[in-house]
């Protein structure tokens, strides 16, 4: 009886139905996701006492003042951005031929094998891969023995991160190119276009949104990373390390929150720019 009653109620009121259907995901998005971002912003306006023991909940812009007046944070922000751009560019350059080969040249059997090969590194732990690169770059290590190791530092970090995030660039590109019908390439050739023209006028328009999607992954993942740089980065520190150190070492959650707003702002700007290009609509 009761169940048929409530079923009837649901049937009679579409608003309730919609509310129950969308409520939980909206709550998830609104409270947990946006709410935590809001909490982050509010925390950044607080400060801690000298012992780092208690958060002083008085409004102050002190953290932002520190962030903007001390040169070191600007240096670290630029270093982080440089790393993120370099990683994204390297991944983009490496991923194009790989994705092109996978989608357009390889036989279906090889296609499957290549997809598995690209995905396999994702099964291994992040730390294992990062420490493997630590071994590669070490004095007397494989790269050093052929005279190619830059030693621990920013370039080692960029190489390691580019390796770690490569699948995130290859897969969207592969998915994008796979949707490009072979007949289009043939039509382009029939109409007299050379390889370059076909690449530029047929492949690139399909590739571009996919590359943008991939770059969002590589760029944002690099902005937030703090582990790889600890393992192969020598003395360098990125924004993630500043957040980590402020929070765990200094027990200064408000300042950590302030610093972590930088990547949030950068990503918002990046996504806005991406939206402007229209790449997101073509995805």
């Amino acid at each position, binding site marked *: 009886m009761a169940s048929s009653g409530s079923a009837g109620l649901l049937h009679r009121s579409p608003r309730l139905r919609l509310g129950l259907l969308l409520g939980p995901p909206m709550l998830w998005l609104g409270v947990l996701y946006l709410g935590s971002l809001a909490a982050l912003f509010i925390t950044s306006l607080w400060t801690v006492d000298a012992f780092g023991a*208690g958060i002083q909940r008085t*409004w102050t812009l002190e953290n932002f003042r520190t962030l903007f007046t001390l040169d070191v944070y600007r240096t*670290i922000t630029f270093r982080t951005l440089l790393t993120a751009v370099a990683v994204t560019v390297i991944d983009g350059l490496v991923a194009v031929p790989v994705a092109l080969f996978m989608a357009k040249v390889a036989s279906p059997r090889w296609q499957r094998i290549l997809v598995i090969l690209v995905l396999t590194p994702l099964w291994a732990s992040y730390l294992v891969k990062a420490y493997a690169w630590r071994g590669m770059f070490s004095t007397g290590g494989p790269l050093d023995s052929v005279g190619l190791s830059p030693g621990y530092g920013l370039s080692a970090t960029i190489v390691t991160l580019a390796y770690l995030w490569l699948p995130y660039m290859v897969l969207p590109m592969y998915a994008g190119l796979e949707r490009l019908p072979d007949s289009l390439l043939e039509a382009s050739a029939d109409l007299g276009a050379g390889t370059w023209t076909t690449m530029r006028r047929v492949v690139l328009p399909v590739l571009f949104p996919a590359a943008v999607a991939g770059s969002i992954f590589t760029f944002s993942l690099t902005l937030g990373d703090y582990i790889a740089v600890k393992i192969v980065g020598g003395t*360098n520190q990125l924004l993630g390390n500043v957040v980590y150190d402020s929070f765990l070492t200094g027990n200064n959650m408000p300042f950590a929150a302030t610093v972590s707003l930088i990547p949030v702002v950068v990503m918002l700007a990046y996504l806005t720019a991406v939206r402007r290009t229209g790449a997101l609509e073509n995805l």
Partner: protein
Amino acid sequence: MKLTRLAGAAVVLALCAVGCGTSSDDSGGSAGDSDTPGGFTAPDVPMASELGDNEGALSILAWPGYAEDGSTDKTVDWVTPFEEKTGCQVDVKTFGTSDEAVSLMQSGQYDVVSASGDASLRLIAGGDVAPVNTDLVPNYADVWPFLKDRPWNSVDDQMYGIPHGYGANLLMWRTDKVDPAPTSWSAVFDDSSAYAGKVTAYDSPIYIADAALYLMNTQPDLGIEDPYALDADQLAAAVELLKAQKANVGEYWSDYLKEVQAFTTGDSIVGTTWQVIANLAEADKVPVKAILPEEGSTGWSDTWMVGSETEHPNCAYAWLDHIISPEANDAVAEWFGEAPASSKACEIATKGFCESYHAGDEAYAEKIHYWTTPIEECLDGRTDVTCTTYQEWTQAWTEIKG
């Protein structure tokens, strides 16, 4: 449209849920009183005067390796004998940094904690730990006298915990790459350019004290009396020294296994280390040597403390007594790699162990400046200046690394 409004409402709700806390009192009720900025008066927390029956449960907050129940290594177990002896069921939570220990202890959920000197003062100031009645801990009598009533474990001659073990940060180098053998910290400071790119240093703001200790010996004009009591000028001098050092540092370490590996490959050839790291490297046949340089060194001295809100005071005291019993204290020290606090632990320790860690060697121990939290009120007794706090050290450390 409707969805946007719904999401908007949710955000406002979330904002309020967080923001509305602003007007209320500091929710971490036991956290440090802000009306005594930096000043050090221990809050009035009652001390146990007598013991009763064990409560049957104990919740422990410990450094990894300090409360082993055989789950890491079958042969490494001093928790099970304790449970059998006292009937207190133990629940262990480990932490990775002193700062983590402080914030976990503020929750009031733990009965005992193993605190290093840079955490203990903060715990005492926050009222998170209670004074310890050493009369109720029979094994306390066997603790080396030079570990009792020290600034990092007592206030006004009142002990706040039971000394557990200590160790020094040493200077280690690769004997095949560094010649002549260094005797002073200058190898990693003023003379570090000789090993450019191969110098290593501990990755924590507390390492600033190492630089301050070096300056204390080389630049007496600065007037540094205690490496943990630095006024603004002295901190600036230490930061200057560390910035110069940074040019020659290959990498900073905080993970001790990473340091072992760096010395094994030769990526680091000289730098600060712990005895346990030197032992591990030597066991791997890496040609290293570690010494306590002529200037002395910084180090740690750990203390077991009792939570002020503990519901299991009897089990807590039973644990304090157990952990510095000769057997347990020796087991911990050998497992973790530090000097035990109990003199009797050395009587049953593996042959040569206490010698290699210089346990009980008071002259050696006095050369160690144990980690202490820098606070506004200068720890060296100066009253005409305010000293820099750990917060400022943290910021300075970020600037040093650049």
